[in-house]
């Protein structure tokens, strides 16, 4: 039974333990708060103790940790981009990694201010540094997962001529990676006291739409083209529709 009185009120919820949508984000335990070393330490921490990463992102080492997260995101995106480029070969071997890495960072950068505003509107005590850290974590976790999909993507890219099929497969992998990245971001928002899930979901929709449009703005990522960037502006749904229409069905042999 609680022993509260007007002179002894219950403690106010701290930012770190505030409910988000009715779900409390528990404080990290001592093991999770262990210092994060170099790149290997960050990779391990991102997967096994994300609450610890979020905690350290609000501390004095934030700049170094954000740098590590962005490095992971850049390397992961570039490596996955090389695998995407192997489908068409030629200049796509360098163009695809450049476009995917730049597109991902650009997407994160233009969505970041809106995340900060949404976080504040939902009652979060997040500072801009916290938001930068969370977005860096989102991108790092996404690209880490994308990289782990690379062997599967490579096997398929060597076995099909269909741009639509490969594009769909990359999209599926990207969506799975985004789901896990979003979970990290959600934990961060909850930890910083966001009281509404709605704002988080709304921002995620914005982020996904921007990223999908980026695939069209930077096309081709999978197929071939005469120019590095497209000459014509297009909405991503229209571009995908055209890509699927142009894709000739194959009649594979079986035995």
């Amino acid at each position, binding site marked *: 039974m609680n022993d509260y009185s007007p002179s002894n009120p219950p403690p106010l919820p701290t930012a770190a333990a505030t409910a988000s949508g009715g779900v409390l984000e528990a404080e990290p335990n001592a093991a999770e708060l262990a210092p994060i070393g170099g790149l290997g330490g960050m990779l391990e921490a991102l997967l096994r103790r994300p609450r610890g990463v979020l905690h350290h992102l609000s501390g004095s080492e934030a700049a170094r940790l954000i740098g590590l997260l962005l490095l992971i995101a850049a390397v992961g995106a570039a490596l996955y981009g090389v695998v995407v480029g192997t489908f068409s070969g030629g200049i796509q071997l360098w163009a695809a990694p450049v476009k995917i890495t730049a597109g991902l960072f650009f997407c994160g950068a233009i969505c970041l201010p809106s995340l900060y505003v949404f976080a504040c509107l939902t009652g979060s005590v997040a500072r801009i540094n916290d938001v930068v850290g969370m977005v860096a974590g989102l991108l790092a976790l996404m690209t880490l997962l994308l990289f782990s999909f690379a062997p599967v993507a490579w096997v*398929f890219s060597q076995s099909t001529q269909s741009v639509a099929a490969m594009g769909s497969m990359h999209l599926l992998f990207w969506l799975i990676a985004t789901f896990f990245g979003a979970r990290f971001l959600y934990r961060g928002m909850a930890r910083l006291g966001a009281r509404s899930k709605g704002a988080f979901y709304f921002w995620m929709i914005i982020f996904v739409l921007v990223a999908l449009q980026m695939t069209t703005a930077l096309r081709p990522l999978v197929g071939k083209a005469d120019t590095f960037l497209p000459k014509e502006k297009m909405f991503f749904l229209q571009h995908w529709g055209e890509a699927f229409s142009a894709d000739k069905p*194959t009649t594979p042999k*079986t035995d």
Partner: protein
Amino acid sequence: MPSPAESAASPRPAPTRFALPALLRGDVAVLQGWLLQRSTPRLIGCLLAIVLGAGIYGASIGCWRSPMQGVYTAAKLPLILLLTALGNALLNGLLAPLLGLNLTLRQTSLAILLSFTLLALILATFSPLVFFAVWNLPPMVAGTARGTAYALIQASQVGVIAFAGLTANVRLLQLLRQLSGSQAVAFRVLCAWLAGNLLLGTQLTWILRPFFGSPSLAVEFLRPDALRGNFFEALAYSLRVLFTY
């Protein structure tokens, strides 16, 4: 930081050697010990069991077409299992902690290898039966592909492989439940691993075709168009044909 697997109740001392009965029984305490302790002989035992078990089964089904096809299929079945485990090692290793099971990359790879080992052992035990069935069938000649014999062999393969796969995955689920202490986490991890392994495994199977062979085509390790198309395109094409006409 100790993983939940390590901090769980300490299992019975695991045999240092590769103990076949423990694996077949799905003795989770022993298997948990295997995951936590490094042992090269045990790893070699798993690899050997996969190569021999799946190899013998492959030889049994491939020899219907010709002895050489039997040799090829004996090499290809273990290759599919090992390449699937290798190709998805990183993915499976990342998915486990993200879904709540704090295992290392080595432990996740070994857990999957153990389930593949069990699968290969079950397949090996069915090999004499399959070989007997094949031996009693008329030889594969042109037109067999539409005959009763071919349908019988196909159906029996589906049955045997489904049984072996199901048993191996049930055992893996039991092991994951023991490691995580949660049915929900174990089920999530298993589903994620299955989805990834299915995706890569079906494509590797497609690339490494043929397994039975065809009487109208030459006996060869890989078809000249091995890298043309994929399983899902073939499936989509078949569905399109089915619903168009």
